[in-house]
């Protein structure tokens, strides 16, 4: 699950070739094809031409306005996945993305409402508030694990519910009495993250004159906001962090084998706390970006409804904790959603089609990863029955050092 890439591996052309081949025949590619075939059969059964449907799905999500929408949706999804990578890669199973995302969003909206309109500085302050709140919230399960013992896996998940309820309550306090929605007031326009090239700016006007109305470039410049750039920078920073910093290296070693890490002078509790702080901080930042760039207020239940935080866990698993993997998987899932909506418009098909494909891909990936695991377990069990060996239960998600399934004895 954890990607261990080193310069040596990247340098070697034979290794590169094998990796390309492995990617083409790998679990993910095969699962995606499998899902498409399965849904294709379904479509034929209800009297649709699967090729036409898939064609529309692609066209609707990868061209023109659709492409811009796909990219825009990828922003929070990829961003949250990147956030989670910091903990998953260190072997810390942080399931608290939801709460961290939400708390970050709330902190930024509160800050933005409290601040006088001060443009970019104000936006930065609101983002910083999101980071700090998310980091603080995210670190709590780590502190609990390090001092008391209960694992992050459990506490981080439970903390989500506390977060959701708490944020709901704060929203009810902030809600203007006259408003009908359960939502905070809208933040001042001055503090909203602007489009890459706002239509009313001189450059925007020049572009508007030079380009056709439906030119993707124009659509992207106006339709995407600066969060897009922030997430791209985050991806690059994460790659650098993992490959080029001592902290990132130590996190990777800890994720591979915690007992080994402790034995070679890596402070494992510090790794747990740092990775959770970064994870939470970045999730909080994404919360801030969504509030400041897209929603402009916090509507009760809106963040949960998007499902971004939970989907992000799947994206990280599908992308094997690698930043590039998260970009690809995150983009793919967004593409399915946007394409699904297009199907609804063109064929009057339910947008649930997209969700079905998405669910099937995940299902098949898990199945493909799971089948060898299960057969192996069964084999071990049969053998244990035969030889009286003890079966060591190894949870799939957390390979322990004792996991001899991938390790040979000498």
């Amino acid at each position, binding site marked *: 699950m954890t990607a261990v890439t080193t310069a040596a591996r990247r340098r070697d052309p034979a290794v590169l070739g094998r990796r390309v081949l492995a990617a083409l025949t790998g679990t993910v590619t095969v699962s995606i094809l499998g899902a498409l075939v399965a849904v294709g059969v379904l479509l034929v059964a209800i009297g649709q031409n699967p090729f036409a449907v898939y064609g529309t799905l692609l066209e609707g999500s990868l061209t023109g306005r659709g492409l811009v929408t796909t990219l825009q949706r990828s922003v929070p999804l990829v961003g949250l996945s990147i956030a989670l990578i910091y903990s998953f890669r260190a072997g810390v199973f942080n399931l608290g993305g939801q709460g961290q995302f939400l708390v970050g969003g709330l902190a930024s909206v509160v800050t933005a409402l409290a601040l006088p309109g001060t443009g970019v500085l104000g936006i930065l302050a609101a983002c910083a508030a999101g980071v700090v709140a998310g980091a603080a919230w995210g670190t709590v399960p780590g502190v609990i694990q390090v001092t008391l013992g209960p694992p992050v896996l459990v506490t981080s998940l439970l903390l989500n519910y506390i977060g959701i309820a708490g944020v709901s309550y704060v929203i009810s306090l902030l809600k203007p009495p006259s408003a009908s929605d359960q939502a905070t007031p809208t933040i001042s326009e001055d503090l909203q993250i602007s489009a890459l090239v706002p239509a009313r700016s001189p450059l925007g006007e020049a572009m508007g004159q030079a380009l056709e109305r439906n030119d993707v470039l124009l659509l992207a410049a106006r339709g995407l906001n600066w969060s897009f750039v922030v997430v791209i920078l985050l991806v690059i920073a994460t790659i650098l962090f993992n490959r080029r910093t001592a902290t990132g290296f*130590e996190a990777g070693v800890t994720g591979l084998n915690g007992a080994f890490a402790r*034995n070679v002078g890596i402070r494992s509790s510090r790794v747990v706390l740092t990775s959770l702080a970064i994870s939470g901080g970045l999730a909080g930042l994404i919360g801030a970006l969504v509030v400041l760039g897209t929603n402009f207020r916090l509507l009760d239940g809106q963040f949960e409804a998007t499902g971004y935080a939970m989907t992000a866990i799947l994206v990280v698993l599908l992308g094997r904790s690698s930043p590039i993997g998260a970009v690809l998987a995150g983009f793919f899932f967004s593409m399915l959603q946007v394409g699904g909506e297009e199907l609804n418009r063109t064929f009057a098909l339910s947008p649930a089609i997209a969700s079905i494909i998405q669910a099937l891909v995940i299902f098949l990936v898990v199945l493909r990863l799971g089948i060898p695991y299960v057969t192996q377990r069964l084999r071990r069990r049969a053998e244990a029955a035969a030889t009286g060996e003890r079966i060591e239960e190894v949870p799939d998600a957390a390979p322990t050092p004792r996991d001899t399934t991938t390790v040979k004895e000498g």
Partner: protein
Amino acid sequence: MRALELSGITKRYPKVVANGGISLAVEQGEIHALIGENGAGKSTLVSILYGFVQPDEGTIVVGGERRSFKDPTDAIAAGLGMVFQNFNLFPELTVAENVVFGAEPGRLGLVDRRAAAAEVGDLAERYGLQVPVGERVEHLPVGVLQRVEILKSLYRDARILILDEPTGVLTPQESEGLFEVMRSLRAAGKSIIFITHKLDEVMAVADRVTVLRDGRVTASLVTAETSPREISRHMTGRDVELSQRLARSAPGAPVLEVEGVTVEVDGRTAVDDVSLSVRAGEIVGIAGVAGNGQDALAAAIGGHHPLRSGRIRIAGTDVDGADNRRRRDLGFTHIPEDRHVTGSAPLGDAVLNLAVGYHRRSPLRERGLLQPKRMVEHAERLIRRFGVRIAGPAVAVGTLSGGNLQKIVVARELGHDAPLLVAEQPTRGVDIGAIESIHGELDEYRARGGAVLLVSSELSEVLNLSDRIAVMFEGRVMAVIPSAEATVPLLGLMMAGVPYETALAEEAASAAEGGTAR
């Protein structure tokens, strides 16, 4: 009668041919040794035989019948049994329960405990395997655990027993006991395949020996008609030269000082008021039967166990409360006992496994950034210097043969050239050539002024390398003696708990009777 015949067994992995057409015949009632350098393909061959690994080519004939094993269950059904180095026993069950587990006698799904104990007792007696049938295995010594494992196979009617490096974890006495068991099994008509790196063991117990090199058979010899020298020539293709130890200079200042240290592990006193010191340019060996507190002492020095009382100083600094990282900063390095669990990240590649610990300093880190290219070069350098057999630095170390993984661990820790090295079983599982080279490295390290605390269950290793020897028994240090005064019988007595003076007197008495053994 022929018990087993393997022919043309081939197994290829990416970049390595682990077995390249191996043929091997084992007679009934024969002890057949399998020997070869690290990575020669011994474990792969027996894994194929036991159904763990599927061969690419080749046939297996057991008792005259051609077989192919999908998994170990098939192999067991065909009368094979295997004892691994890592035991798989339930600590909370008794010996008898462990032996019958999964094949319990009884009716209607109820286990007949009494029948089980009786059956196991009979079985043990028949083959001269002494085990406390009714005792829980929790605190039994490894030698006994191994006998329990052998009983498990015998209980399932194994006719061919595979032992992969069984003596690696045993004391010399325990090994001798194992050989007795092997001989009585042979007398009962069982066949045994026995993997080892030790030529004297081959000579002592095996009828035939098959030598592997680079996945091929280079010789199959009758032990009575050959010599260790001939075997080792077939293993390496050359004569192994024993390197000369470097001249010893006077040791310098103390680098490790342990004073009155007591450590408790799980409520039991594991280390009991131990005091010793290791000076720069000195190797102090700890002799003792495994489980007499050596591992707890090493863990305490590494900062993994709090001290009940006493103090430890590394390079003159009291390390009370300091964690492993801080101790490493002071110059502590450590070859741990278990290369898989604490010595490496098996899923990580050699670059990662060799860079750990160097990654915070120049040249691997410059201006706050890791230098991937230098990390690769660093790995390549250590791989070359320690002769690790690996296809390239990007290979996951978990796929290496046992001995080669051990070399990775040794290379990483010795490569630091830090003032202090705690080496636990540094040559466990490595071949003779590699033992020589690791010993040579330790010797040079000492000559450069390094201080080594050497923990080894291999008495010859302790005697060969140490300047002074501390004997541990039940958590206490019985005595620290200069290695010039140490003999195998003297150490043996003290390792069994005989106090120094008594042991000295006894040894003198027996030396007066007959020739001394040194």
